């Protein structure tokens, strides 16, 4: 069976600006795709095309095999979408808004009540049901938007920055919710909070200036930085040459950088080949040769660094 959501070579230009330049992705049930990229890189535009709000200049969006272009109404039935900023009708009460969504989603009878209650419970908005949406805090507004998107238990869930404006507890809760929902749903989450990618996503799509930079996993994203999995060894200057000689015999390492720290300490940064995990090899060498070291640690590249490296040029200035 085809994947739940398949985007094929989507393109969109606004005047002279190429917003999205041939983006394809495919997400199946059980998968959560982290859709990341700098502001203005085309994330929201891509999502708007996937959900049928914007018509792409070229390319297609298929939801469970149904073409968004040819059968928009049918395709939209299968999607739950939280647009950027979680827009809603401010003058409505939360419950009034949810009732409206339930009506449009064609929920009737017993099922209607059950699904509305479930959405309220999942998004934890029980205490603001009678409140006007305009008067809600940013976090609650976001959760009302989320409840709207998940109410009909869609096959495809597309969330544009769902945790923006939430406090750490709420973020944690939303991530749990997304993970729970993903069991039967294909989920695309755009975010600029990279910890989120580590926390919930099974895949990562990084875009910049409308082009795909990386399509893979968080691990692959990290591996784009050469010092990923590098091992730092701290030892005395007099042991330096001996240590270097011994370590260079390992086939798994690519090079060794020496950083002098103090008079009594040097730091060796041992870089692996192809992001191999080298700590065990190094530890063995150290143990076998009884090298006197004072510290050893593995560099864990932060996703932020990988993100920055991939979306900026060498000078560290964002590509324009």
């Amino acid at each position, binding site marked *: 069976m085809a994947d739940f959501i398949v985007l094929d070579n989507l393109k969109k230009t606004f005047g002279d600006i190429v917003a999205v330049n041939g983006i394809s992705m495919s997400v199946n049930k059980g998968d959560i795709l982290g859709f990341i990229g700098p502001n203005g890189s085309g994330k929201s535009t891509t999502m*708007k095309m996937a959900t049928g709000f914007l018509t792409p200049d070229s390319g297609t969006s298929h939801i469970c095999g149904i073409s968004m272009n040819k059968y928009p*109404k049918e395709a939209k039935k299968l999607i739950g979408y939280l*647009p*950027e900023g979680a*827009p809603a*009708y401010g003058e*409505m009460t939360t419950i009034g808004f949810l009732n*409206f*969504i339930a009506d449009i*989603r064609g929920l009737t009878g017993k099922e209607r009540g059950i699904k509305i209650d479930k959405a309220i419970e999942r998004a934890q908005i029980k205490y603001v049901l009678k409140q006007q949406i305009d008067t809600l805090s940013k976090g609650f507004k976001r959760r009302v938007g989320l409840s709207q998107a998940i109410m009909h238990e869609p096959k495809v869930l597309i969330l544009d920055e769902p945790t923006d404006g939430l406090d750490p507890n709420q973020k944690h809760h939303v991530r749990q919710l997304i993970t729970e929902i993903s069991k039967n749903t294909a989920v695309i989450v755009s975010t600029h909070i990279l910890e989120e990618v580590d926390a919930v996503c099974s895949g990562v799509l990084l875009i910049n200036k409308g082009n795909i930079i990386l399509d893979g996993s968080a691990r692959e994203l990290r591996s784009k930085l050469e010092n990923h999995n590098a091992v730092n060894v701290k030892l005395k200057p007099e042991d330096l040459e001996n240590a270097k000689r011994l370590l260079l015999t390992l086939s798994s390492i690519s090079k060794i950088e020496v950083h002098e720290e103090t008079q009594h300490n040097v730091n060796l940064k041992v870089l692996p080949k192809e992001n191999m995990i080298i700590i065990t090899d190094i530890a063995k060498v150290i143990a076998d040769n009884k090298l006197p070291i004072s510290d050893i640690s593995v560099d864990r590249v932060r996703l932020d660094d990988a993100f920055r490296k991939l979306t900026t040029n060498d000078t560290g200035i964002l590509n324009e």
Partner: protein
Amino acid sequence: MNNIIIIARREAKAYFSTPLAYIFISIFCGLTAAFTFYLGAFIERGQADLAPFFESHPWLLVLLVPSISMRLWAEERKTGSIELLMTLPITSLEAVIGKFIAAWLMIAVALILTFPIWITINILGNPDNGVVISSYLGSWLLAGQFLAIGSALSAMTKNQVIAFVVSTAACFIFVMSGLETVTQALEGWLPNFVLLAVDTMSSLDYFEEFTKGIIDARAIVFYVTTIVFWLFINVVVINLKKAK
């Protein structure tokens, strides 16, 4: 069909859960009364009819209907809720008609709530109530036409002020095009067929038929066609914006 009702109901609730509907209705009723009694010399003329009341309607509607229609789409665009609405499983046509119906019904409520003046005239004399009813119908159709124009223009911008000003101007042209002073001024400047076209497009002429108690099929066709035409433009604008 069902979706149209759901949209219309949501819109209508929005009118009445904010001060919008109440203010619109109060101002409309207040101004029609003011026009009728002061400018129209309702009492002094000593005639048992509502002519001065209905004469004021086209001019009031030119101003007041765009104040309703300006928000129809411009507000959705401004707040971003249009993105929510248009990604729900509904068509542009359903959304356009639903919104139009809610606003048109709200204007109907405003017209109905001017009933005290009808009661007054019935106490004071024996008016031709058939004329009154046909005049109300004409007024409502005229409002519908302005509303359709305003709705289409509102879809073109996210600025409500622009939507209001442009819609008022457009409705004003539709009313003015029937006035003799205007057609006379254009005479000699424009070819005859254009003059004729301008003259037949006049909302005011058709409205005046209604105020004489004549429900002419041509007049109804005129209003219905222009409403359908502008709502069609409305749908086209919304679909074009998707592909902009």
